[in-house]
């Protein structure tokens, strides 16, 4: 069975004043129809860059996709002609962004912005698109959609704006939704509402969700499988339940500890010492070795390749803890 989305060996480079750096290197993963896959990692791990690369949204001036293939519904998005790519964007793949205030055009009403997509991709008339816009807003549970549709983004709350973004992304019933930190800019109380909305619509529309986040609580609730990224590379992948209970990579263990996954009375908040190395200053061996409490001397000289650590699970670590078979 062919996957909905298969990313093979994706490498994204950025040209900076200090030379070329690789923000994403050799990333591969697959996403099946109707599945939710989460990519987790700290800031600078390359997870958002990878998400943008799928739709070829890397800013042309500074960055470029240096290699790999992105197979979506059977065609390679990286070699697609521009007009065919535009037909995929918005219609087959929807995307929502971290800050819904910034992602809506301030000079147009909500209704105009939703209608835009429908007119462009489905050739709807303005009147029909507007009606469909009201339905979509109702579907994402915006109260009084007939009134809201004529409002400007600055009149809406953060949660409402993100709902509008979701309505726009889903307007053409895409088979894949890319959600780049969809709840990071929202209040905690609103976060849960937006997430459950995404989950519900996913089932209703039968779409797959690629969730980019650093919030492990979100991953636990939403995702069937998890890809953990560190310094531009995938360091671990597996089904979320088993990955959370038995993390194989020391970095994943650190993330879970930092997220207070292991409950304990009066314990200090745990953190991973240090920060993600700058892509222009990568250590020779494993990129995580300088911060790793399990590192051995081999880790500092040689970069570990991804290896199987259990059924459907892999990790890139010399001292990874394999699951008992």
């Amino acid at each position, binding site marked *: 069975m062919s996957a909905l989305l298969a990313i093979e060996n994706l490498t994204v480079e950025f040209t900076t004043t200090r030379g070329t750096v690789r923000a994403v290197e050799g990333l591969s993963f697959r996403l099946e129809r109707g599945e939710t896959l989460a990519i987790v990692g700290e800031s600078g791990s390359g997870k958002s860059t990878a998400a*943008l690369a799928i*739709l070829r*949204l890397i*800013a*042309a*001036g500074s960055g470029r996709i240096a290699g790999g293939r992105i197979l979506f519904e059977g065609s390679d998005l990286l070699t697609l002609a521009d007009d065919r*790519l*535009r*037909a*995929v*964007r*918005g*219609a087959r*793949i*929807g*995307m929502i*962004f*971290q*800050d819904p205030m*910034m*992602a*809506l*055009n*301030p*000079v*147009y009403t909500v209704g105009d912005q939703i209608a*835009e*997509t429908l007119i*462009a*991709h489905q050739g709807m008339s303005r009147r029909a698109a507007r009606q469909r816009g009201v339905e979509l807003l109702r579907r994402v549970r915006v109260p009084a959609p007939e009134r809201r549709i004529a409002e400007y983004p600055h009149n809406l709350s953060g949660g409402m704006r993100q709902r509008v*973004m979701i309505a*726009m*992304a889903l307007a053409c019933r895409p088979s894949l939704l890319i959600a780049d930190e969809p709840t990071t800019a929202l209040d905690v109380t609103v976060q849960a509402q937006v997430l459950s909305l995404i989950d519900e619509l996913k089932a209703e529309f039968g779409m797959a969700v690629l969730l980019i986040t650093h919030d492990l609580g979100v991953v636990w609730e939403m995702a069937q499988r998890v890809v953990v990224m560190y310094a531009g590379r995938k360091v671990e992948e597996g089904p979320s339940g088993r990955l959370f209970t038995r993390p194989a990579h020391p970095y994943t263990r650190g993330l879970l500890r930092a997220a207070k996954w292991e409950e304990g009375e009066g314990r200090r908040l745990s953190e991973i010492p240090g920060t993600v190395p700058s892509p222009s200053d990568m250590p020779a061996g494993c990129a995580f070795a300088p911060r790793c409490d399990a590192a051995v001397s081999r880790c500092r000289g040689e970069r570990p390749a991804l290896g199987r650590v259990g059924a459907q699970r892999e990790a890139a670590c010399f001292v990874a803890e394999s699951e008992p078979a």
Partner: protein
Amino acid sequence: MSSSLVDFWRKFRRNRAAVAALFVLALIVLAAAFGPLLYTADPFDMLGRPTQPPSQRFPLGTDVSGRDILAGLIHGARVSLLIGIVASLAATLFGVLVGAAAGYYGGALDNLLMRGTDFFLTIPSFVLAVVLVAIFSPSIVSVTAAIAIVSWPSVARLARAEFIAQRDRDYVQACRALGMSNLDIILRQIMPNALPPVIVVASLMVATAILTESGLSFLGLSDPNVISWGYMIGVGRTVLRVAWWMSAIPGVTILVTVLCINLVGEGLSDALNPRLQQR
């Protein structure tokens, strides 16, 4: 849409000077539009004794050839305003397109367009306008074109800066993610966000264009078939010591018009500036 216009007017109204200037400007425009119908004297006809001070028959006197100065002023308003507005519109349109392309696409295209713009900016604009009009022989079209040609670079630079500031915003990214074409994004998505400061500059440019036109006609580089304010100053210049009003009247008219346009431009700037848009 109408609510945002109401909103705009509410903000514009707060600037009293701008509202007053808008009123004066409206009078000038009305005079230019309907004046020749009400005051029928031909500005080129010799109607009386030359160099008369203002009198009942000639409310603003006559010039060195006995032509009615008030008639000249009214007809000149048409020419000055027409050239000022058309030249500014043309310069704004062209400058915005150049700036938008340069700012949005960046890279080699940006370099090419901006070095071209710099070329125009290195030449003193009035001197360039004089040269252009002299080459193409003075006519309304050549004067307008010359003023537009020396005016667009500043618009292009401003539009470019606005587009650079907007192009990396998330909403532009979101538009791309929705499958919009670059042309759609430039014209329909970024343009409305980039336009307010451009509108302000364009309105101020009308004032500069009127001044440039007056300067050109003062030097004799104006369409010989139409009268303009600058031409009238030039005519009066030789008798400045005996009939000062001959130059002063069109001079004050230019001053008032340009001042009013600038004040209105200031008002626009206040009303359109997003940093002042709280409340």
